[in-house]
């Protein structure tokens, strides 16, 4: 439908969700909405990377259990994370022994997984699809920034990678909320090179997909109870609102951001907010899904945002491109 969108004939039910986070996220404003708060950031494993896979494994398993399904009922697993070759999702889904698609959209991964999952279910290719995304603060720092023990300062525009996993079962059978439409984002490059300001990298991608969504469906921000981006943070939120105003849409009253809501910036020293695959994934699967279930929200546009930071291309002088995917979830 339109340029970049698709609507679904079947109601694709978000049958269950599971969210698992670390201790810091557990102490944040959304703490009580998560299924499991893991006090041990190593999750009993011996490295950050293995810990992330453990978070992923527990989250995927729990989502299946909460849907009252067995692993055999899952037709496809769509999962991803930030680590090279999607190691977090790979080792997390290894034991499930179900057909597996690794997906990567940096921090927008859960949006990609939900979009593709809904397509598979609606197209009749699957009855139940398991979608998930994970990230781990320490593993991300180690891969993308510096060793944790290095004494450096974080600039005020920087964000804090969320440790955790969010997973959801999409199903042909099941009650509300439903995924009713998707708008798939384009890759966007607005010339930003600052890897300590991911909000500025991703805001144009969010603007691009949100305005495309409104054009494709002839909707305005008023159609939704909330437009929820993934991890723009405070810096990216301001930019998104200004960019969308430029396009003729005022989202200042409807916009919410998982990165802003998952941490308390005054007490948790997270600067611009939370980030990482698990930021949008865990905030949606924990908090926002719950808000939909108890009808505090009825129509949301969920827009996980991703900055595609490749350390090699970055060092070779390329800009950081970004992408965002919009998923309409309604009761």
């Amino acid at each position: 439908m339109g340029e970049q969108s698709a609507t679904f004939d079947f109601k694709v039910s978000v049958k269950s969700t599971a969210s698992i986070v670390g201790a810091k996220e557990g102490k944040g404003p959304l703490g009580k909405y998560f299924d499991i708060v893991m006090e041990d950031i190593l999750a009993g494993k011996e490295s950050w990377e293995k810990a992330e896979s453990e978070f992923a494994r527990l989250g995927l398993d729990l989502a299946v259990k909460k849907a009252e399904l067995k692993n055999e009922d899952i037709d496809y697993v769509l999962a991803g994370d930030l680590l090279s070759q999607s190691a977090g999702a790979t080792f997390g889904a290894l034991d499930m022994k179900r057909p597996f698609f690794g997906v990567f959209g940096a921090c927008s991964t859960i949006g990609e997984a939900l979009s593709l999952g809904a397509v598979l279910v609606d197209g009749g290719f699957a009855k139940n699809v398991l979608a998930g995304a994970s990230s781990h603060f320490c593993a991300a720092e180690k891969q993308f920034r510096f060793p944790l023990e290095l004494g450096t300062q974080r600039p005020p525009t920087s964000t804090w990678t969320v440790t955790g996993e969010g997973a959801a079962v999409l199903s042909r059978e099941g009650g509300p909320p439903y995924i009713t439409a998707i708008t798939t984002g384009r890759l966007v490059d607005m010339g930003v090179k600052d890897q300590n300001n991911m909000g500025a990298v991703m805001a144009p991608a969010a603007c691009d997909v949100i305005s495309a969504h409104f054009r494709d469906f002839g909707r305005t921000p008023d159609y939704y109870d909330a437009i929820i981006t993934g991890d723009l943070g405070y810096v990216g939120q301001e930019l998104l609102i200004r960019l969308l105003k430029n396009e003729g849409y005022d989202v200042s009253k409807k916009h919410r951001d998982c990165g802003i809501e998952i941490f308390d910036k005054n007490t948790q020293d997270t600067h611009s907010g939370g980030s990482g695959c698990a930021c949008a994934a865990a905030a949606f699967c924990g908090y926002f899904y719950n808000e939909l279930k108890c009808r505090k929200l009825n129509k949301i546009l969920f827009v996980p945002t991703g900055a595609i930071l490749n350390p090699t291309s970055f060092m070779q002088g390329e800009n950081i491109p970004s992408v965002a995917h919009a998923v309409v979830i309604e009761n």
Partner: protein
Amino acid sequence: MDDTYIGKEKYKEMVKETAPKSKTTANSFRAFIVGGGICVIGQIIHNLCLSAGAGRDSAGTYTAVVLIFLGCLLTGLGIYDKIGKFAGAGSVVPITGFANSVSAPAIEFKKEGYVLGVGAKIFVVAGPVIVYGTISSIIVGLIYYFTR
């Protein structure tokens, strides 16, 4: 969004406007206090070495070695990164910061093994310092040799 909407240049300006500024003055003050403090500790060690009978040059060397030891120890104990968060350049620029930049990757990458993890990654941060330091010394040496 491509250039037709707002344009990269205009967006760059918008980003500049919205980005919160680093608290440069407060940061510099903290860097000053901590950096100066580390140098005073160095001076104390230096004077102790002198009074223990060391020559001026070897006192300097002992001072460097002791500070490097302290830098590695505090890194291992997980204290140096907290000092660094507070002090910024104040704990990066002194030689203890060099020790921190060697010790931190050594510890972080031990999970990848002692040869390809610790051994290969130990200079991942500090390596450039040694490369460009020694190259500078070769350039200066060449100039000195041919002009003395």
